[in-house]
């Protein structure tokens, strides 16, 4: 059954790659170019999962996770961080904010899909 996934990344090409990976697996995709834009997309509709970059303008990924967890209707929505950041301190920040997984770019599309299916299963 198709799930709706929100992709948040300031890189249009990365959003495109992630979108192609997810739509190829039959999922529906919403896109946002940063954390602030992502929050405008969370307007009550069902979002099964969020995939977010960390370093973005306006509102970064860690800030987005905190903001999402503060919203009742989305506080249980799993969030995957997809980022070039591989520092343990950053990962710890993401975990503390409420992210469920951390994937370092460049990523293998099948690894992303496996993580997505695991968290939505």
């Amino acid at each position, binding site marked *: 059954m198709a799930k709706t996934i929100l992709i948040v990344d300031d*890189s249009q090409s*990365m959003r*495109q790659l992630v979108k192609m990976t997810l739509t190829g697996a039959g999922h529906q995709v919403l896109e946002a170019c940063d954390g602030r834009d992502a929050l405008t997309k969370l307007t009550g509709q069902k979002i099964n999962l969020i995939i977010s970059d960390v370093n973005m303008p306006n509102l970064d990924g860690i800030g987005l996770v905190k903001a999402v967890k503060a919203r009742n209707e989305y506080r249980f929505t799993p969030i995957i961080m997809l980022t070039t950041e591989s520092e343990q301190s950053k990962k710890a920040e993401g975990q503390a904010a409420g992210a469920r997984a951390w*994937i370092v*770019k460049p*990523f293998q599309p099948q*690894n992303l899909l496996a*993580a997505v299916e*695991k968290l939505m299963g």
Partner: protein
Amino acid sequence: MRIYLGAWLGLALATIGLVVPVHLLPHAGLLLSSLALLALRPRKTARAAATSHSQTPVDSVVTQASAGDWQLIEGVAPSWRDSLGQTRALLQSNIGELFQRFHNIAQRLEQSLDNSNDVLGNGGVGESLRDANQRLHEVTESFRASSQRQHALLDTISHLDSYASQLQHMARRVQEIAKQTNLLALNAAIEAARAGEYGRGFSVVADEVRKLSTLSAETGLAMDEKVGEITHAIQTTIEAAAELGTSEQSNLDFLSQSVSGVMSRLGDNLNQLSDASHALQHDARETQHDIQAIMVSLQFQDRTDQMLEHVQSDLQDLLDAIVANDPSLHDAPAWLDRLRQRFTTDEERHGQPKTPSSAEVTFF
């Protein structure tokens, strides 16, 4: 005014050297040329930092900038900044298009593989051919069974021929009996004539018996002729059927051989087609793996974009500081610390790129 100009140039050159692919160097040419102009000035060069990964760019040697340097930087740096922006935009659009094209190729390959499996797998050409072979074999066997039934029919008709011979013999016997009866009737008539008036009644009976014997002889003859005609018809039928049977057996043998030959050739062709298709499938899967690897490799653009963005932002900060004659221009360590805070990639932090692996996924 003091600033770690060499360190900044070292960082810029190292970043561009790390991230800009060879085919995009012309677009970064202006920036590199401008940076080279400054790097060639009589101060400790940052070139070593750009060419060595053992030393991070921000650890480069620092020097003191003159008032003339600031004027030059203020005049040229906006061009560097714009070139960086153009490079980022160019990379973004081209890599996006490459992602799309490779994705389309991968999808078409997937579709071709599915089609190929449909043709070669269950319900495909191979199964159709095996089914056709089975059905043709059944048709041949049906013809063979029909031929055997025809032989059985011929045997039955052959027996009819022997019955006809017996009938003909019986018909001739009837003629002989009629002939004897006629003779007896003739003798009876002679004896009746001798008896005179007393034999008149007997004479009438003898005449009737003669008529009957004559009629019997004619009937026997007619039977003999008809049985002869029937026998001839049966013989003709048997001969025609035998000839037909021989021809049919020949046709059956030809049909069987033709079917076997055609099916054998089709089977050989199918095997060749199957081998070629499997080779194509293997190549297609290898190509898909290559495309997956390319899709991963092309993600360098995201790291490149971030690194260029950091240089671009720092360049803007430098311009702003020059215009404002900001005191931060005199505190190189603090400036470099701020710059380090922006770093998001291993290349920036350690000068080493990362390689993708399944270990890159961490679940919390």
